[in-house]
């Protein structure tokens, strides 16, 4: 049975549709990342699962029980979920322990039981030593740990996380990311994780749901998503691929005035379409093709930028002393995908 089942969800603010006909099934114990650019509707979707927004249409069930359906809306407090907010949302007027204790109080647990559970939850996020502290004496990383402990302490059916790391600096972000991963393997909690950072999504989740303008483009395991993007948008957003419109004759693609040839054994369907090629799947040698407009030395490899009329093309290749700025180069395709138009 699915832990969370979203069926044909819709939500508009005023006349602007924000989530359009979204269906997604999340298995028990699974961690699904909702990935997409800013404003695509990730937070709105998560808030509908939490019960903080009411869908305009569609259904939501949690553990097989409907919580949202036409004429039905279970309020957030009745859904038994945990949620971690981007802004931490740790109550400033309560100590760390009191914050974590709050959901247990609402459940009406006895004092001894509450204390034991708070201690355990603070142990999960390694904050036992700070139990008596006030939030204004904590760092961002510690605040987010408090929020995690508070969301997990009541044994939620699903843990919802809305960009939990985006307010932290790079080092803390990696630290906390590892911590979330280890918590998950320890507790086995079902998680929905919203982010716009593809590394976070690919690194943490069992499956990644890529959203664009309120629509799910692809839901797949990270390797599948990376290796077999279902749409040009996914390829560009997840792998940083070049997406170029052109005409293919099977072994070469004409983009405007430029021709990119396939290296054997690669062949492409013929006709008009979108060429999707990752920077690392291009070979660059001096020749008579597009002009080199920029060169960024990245250590292990060099990023080359070419000008193809209205498009820019990015390639990642070993450093070559022969390629000069402003000089033409020959660019060939080792691997590529083709989406006919």
């Amino acid at each position, binding site marked *: 049975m699915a832990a969370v089942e979203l069926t044909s969800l819709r939500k508009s603010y005023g006349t602007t549709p924000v989530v359009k006909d979204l269906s997604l099934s999340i298995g028990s114990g699974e961690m699904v990342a909702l990935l997409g650019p800013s404003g695509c509707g990730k937070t709105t979707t998560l808030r509908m699962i939490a019960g*903080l927004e009411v869908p305009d249409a569609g259904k939501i069930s949690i553990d097989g029980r409907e919580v949202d359906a036409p004429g039905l809306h279970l309020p*957030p407090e009745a859904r038994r979920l945990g*949620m971690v907010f981007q802004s931490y949302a740790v109550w400033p007027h309560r100590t760390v322990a009191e914050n974590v204790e709050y959901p247990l109080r609402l459940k009406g647990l006895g004092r001894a039981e509450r204390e034991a559970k708070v201690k355990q939850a603070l142990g999960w996020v390694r904050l036992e030593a700070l139990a008596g502290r006030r939030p204004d004496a904590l760092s961002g990383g510690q605040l987010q740990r408090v929020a995690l402990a508070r969301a997990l302490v009541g044994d939620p059916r699903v843990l919802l996380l809305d960009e939990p790391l985006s307010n932290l600096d790079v080092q803390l972000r990696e630290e906390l990311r590892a911590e979330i991963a280890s918590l998950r393997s320890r507790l086995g909690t079902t998680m929905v994780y919203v982010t716009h950072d593809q590394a976070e999504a690919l690194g943490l989740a069992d499956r990644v749901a890529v959203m664009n303008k309120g629509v799910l483009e692809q839901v797949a395991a990270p390797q599948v998503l990376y290796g077999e993007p279902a749409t040009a948008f996914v390829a560009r957003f997840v792998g940083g691929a070049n997406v170029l419109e052109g005409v293919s004759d099977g072994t070469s693609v004409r983009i405007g005035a430029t021709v990119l040839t396939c290296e054997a054994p690669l062949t492409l369907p013929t006709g008009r379409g979108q060429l999707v090629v990752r920077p690392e799947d291009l070979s660059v040698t001096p020749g008579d093709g597009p002009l080199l407009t920029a060169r960024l030395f990245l250590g292990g490899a060099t990023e080359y930028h070419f000008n193809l009329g209205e498009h820019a093309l990015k390639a990642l290749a070993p450093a070559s002393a022969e390629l000069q700025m402003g000089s033409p180069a020959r660019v060939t395709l080792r691997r590529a995908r083709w989406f006919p138009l």
Partner: protein
Amino acid sequence: MRRLALAAPLLLFALLPLGRLVAEGLGHLDAIATAEARRALSGTLLTSSGAALFAFLLGLPLAVLLVRTDLPARRALRAIFTLPTALPPFIFGMGWVALANPKAGLLNLALGEGTLDIYGSAGIAFVLGGCGLPLVVLAASASLERVDASLEEAARLCGAGPLRTLAHVSLPLALPAALSGAALVFLFSASAFGVPYLLGVTASPPTTTLTTHVYGLVLMGHGGLASAGAIALVLLTLASAVLLASRLASRAGRVRLSSGKGIKLRPLALGPWRAPLGVAAIAIAGVLVALPLGAVFLTSLEPSFGRLENLSLQHWDRLLHTPRVAEAALRSVGLSLAAAALVTLLGLAYAVGRTRLGNVGRALELAAAWPYAVPGTVLGMGLLLTFSMDWRVVIGGKLTFVLALANTLWLVLIAYTARHLAFGVRHASDGLSQADPSLTEAARVCGAPPLRAFLDATLPQLKAPLAAAFTLTFLTCATELTLSVLLVPTGQDLLGTVLFELMSYADPAAASVLAGGFVLIVLTVLAGRTLLVRRPA
């Protein structure tokens, strides 16, 4: 149902009195054709425009100096110049009586008898203008703080000296805000009752204003009540016209200021003018604020009015042992605490209502604002006219409920609460708009139903603004005069009315003890709040 619960008190205690006042006033328009009424109107116009002019001419340059320059002791000066907003103008009036009473005033003792005379229109305008000064200074400062310093620097680069730069660049930018501040001073002065009474009634010839005229008519008993209503209606019309005109003017004259972010406020160096201008500003602060307050304290220590030898605490001792004063103090404190609590609670309810109830909520908020926007005399007259008789609620032929408020402290409580409700609504609204919604949502997801989440997660965020509304209401009500003199039940004096009576008729030394005590309390509260606010930063 919730709408009705929120709307009922406003309908009964704010809108109904307004309607009643208008109806009653229109029915007795002959009262405004009398010679006294005309004298009162011209008295109000004269003293209020005088006060507005004085506050404007002094406040605009002061704001420029305080905000845009390296004037010495700016912070302290700003605090001193805004102090009068926290104290009743009546106390400043008392101070000036002690200083510039033609016979025994302290200044006249030094300068020669009869040099200064605080009684009459000029004196009233001067005292009210000094008390209203913060309105101009604060309004002009607020707009100057949003002006980009590069405008001034450009003038300096073009070769203008510091004074010329201030006069040609900064001053004009603050002009519209200072003008609307001056309009507020006009309203404040037209609404004032204590100062015009203290300095006007015994002047020769006597100066009356609309507010003191209303009081005189009310003292005549039931016969005068309707005429008083008509005069209050004139006051309401005048106040509304000024308010409307100033709104329109400020909309037309709005200057484009920098959008607010990323402006560097580099104070302009005054150079050689720094010392003399600093001395002048400190002297003005001394004359307008320190001098009258000091005179109040001195009077409370003198053996008799205007005699500076043998200072002692005998009046303090005497007053503390006067049961009538102690009872009045107790009554006032009780009423003010109750009003402050009601203002805070109702303000919170209306602020929440505004966010939940859409247009109805906004209408309620407007209705809650009017008792503060109009002169206190207008509200007082409205309540007096409406509740001078009992209200009997008859349902199904049976008498179910009698609302007999006339001559009770309940009516005073209602007046205090209605008058200051705007404080509560404004502070709670500001607090709510700054509160972090995710704190409340986190509580909901943790399992808290809406009300519980509001109490546990939203309310704690509103502590500071609600405490401010409570304190402000309490302090204003504790010595409130304008509403109190109209509504106080016979034999149940309040602090404000005792102070008024002692000062106007019998015992200025005792009045000074009361006023001095009150000033000490306010200063302590303000200092405490400043310390509390500064600590976390």
